[in-house]
């Protein structure tokens, strides 16, 4: 096989790695810092102001979040394109997880795009930082609330199931038993992360 062909293996491993570090780590950080919303609008606004006025923040946003997500998304779309669904005749647990991993990936991508645009880029174009009130306005329409609920849950599932399959892909969990344990652990993590995300959303309503 041609040497250049191996690049594909490196790209897929990079895709897998980026999903956890930095993207997955960032999701935790994002939930953590947005948890300041629990303490009220002032604390939230102060935090956003503090974070977004540090000079290194835009660099980190592009290098540690934007570019990795862009790479993950482009290769992810190719992966989705080369997949099919056959859970009707073959209705097995991991086959459903395979389908949901791709479906949540697509939804999370659309969600992240609109979320970043409305909460980061749009205020930036107006030369200011997003506020608690802005977020409330974004959440105002009923569809937006549901869009966020599904978006948050999609991102949480995509990460937690992704951790589970990454462990298989990299050959860490080989035995069916270890794969079962990590599957249960990933669901526990999904419930925790999903609930946390939804509570943050509720803090704005």
């Amino acid at each position: 096989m041609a040497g250049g062909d191996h690049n594909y293996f490196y790209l897929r491993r990079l895709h897998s790695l980026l999903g956890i570090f930095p993207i997955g780590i960032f999701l935790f950080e994002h939930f953590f810092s947005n948890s300041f919303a629990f303490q009220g609008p002032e604390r939230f606004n102060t935090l956003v102001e503090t974070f977004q006025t540090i000079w290194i923040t835009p660099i980190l946003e592009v290098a540690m979040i934007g570019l990795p997500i862009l790479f993950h998304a482009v290769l992810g779309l190719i992966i989705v394109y080369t997949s099919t669904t056959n859970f009707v005749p073959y209705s097995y647990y991991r086959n459903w997880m395979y389908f949901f991993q791709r479906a949540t990936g697509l939804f999370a991508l659309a969600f992240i795009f609109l979320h970043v645009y409305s909460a980061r880029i749009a205020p930036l174009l107006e030369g200011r930082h997003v506020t608690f009130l802005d977020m409330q306005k974004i959440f105002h329409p009923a569809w937006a609330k549901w869009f966020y609920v599904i978006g948050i849950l999609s991102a949480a599932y995509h990460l937690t199931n992704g951790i589970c399959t990454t462990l298989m892909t990299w050959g860490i969990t080989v035995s069916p038993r270890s794969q079962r344990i990590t599957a249960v652990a990933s669901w526990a993590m999904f419930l925790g992360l999903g609930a946390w995300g939804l509570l943050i959303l509720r803090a704005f309503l």
Partner: protein
Amino acid sequence: MKASVRLKVRRQDNPKSTPYWESFEIPYRQHLNVINLLMAIQENPVNEHGQKVAPVVWECSCLEEVCGSCTMIINGKVRQSCSALVDQFEQPIVLEPMSKFPVVRDLRVDRRAMFETLKKIQGWVNIDGYFNLGPGPVLDEKIRMKCYEYSRCMTCGCCCEACPQFNSRSPFIGAFAFGQVHLFNSHPVGKFDEARRLDSIMGMGGLADCGNAQNCLRACPKNIPLPDAIAELGWTTTKRAVTRFFKE
């Protein structure tokens, strides 16, 4: 007791023609299998409307689920027709050719892609010549038992048919290949070609394209633990990638 068996077959006259459905009624006997039904059609090729038609084409050889040639889709799921007992199925029994391989005619498909893959991954142990090499190397019993499981692969295509990642839009080579790479890399002599085999599954359509749906495990008639081989190779290919990147 049922007097007859109803059979519905997805037929196709040649690789390019449009498929169509045709139904048959076959006299019931005890302990019939699907091959018996197809043989009955061969003897008396008359469809449910009493019209004489061309007999249904299919492939079979061993009739004991070790050759894989009679693999087809029966009531929606892929399996060997020789071990498919009529009494275990709801009627009508629906037969379709495998959907992931080109149809030659009726239920007969061309699985050449799988054999090309076996050539690509070097699914054999290289030896130097025809002279006597003496006794073979001793194998750890635990490894031998594991190897035996992978050695039962008959390249039937069930893992490919059931895999959502194995399709015309994807270059994915199919799970059976990884079982064979793992088998021949576990062999003390086969191990000499380990790097070559690993390289052969690290390109487009190789190991990295597996989406962990694990249908291969469920579909394999021999219960070969293909996801184990895939996960084991996930680690050895990663090590191989590091070696290639830093040392070669």
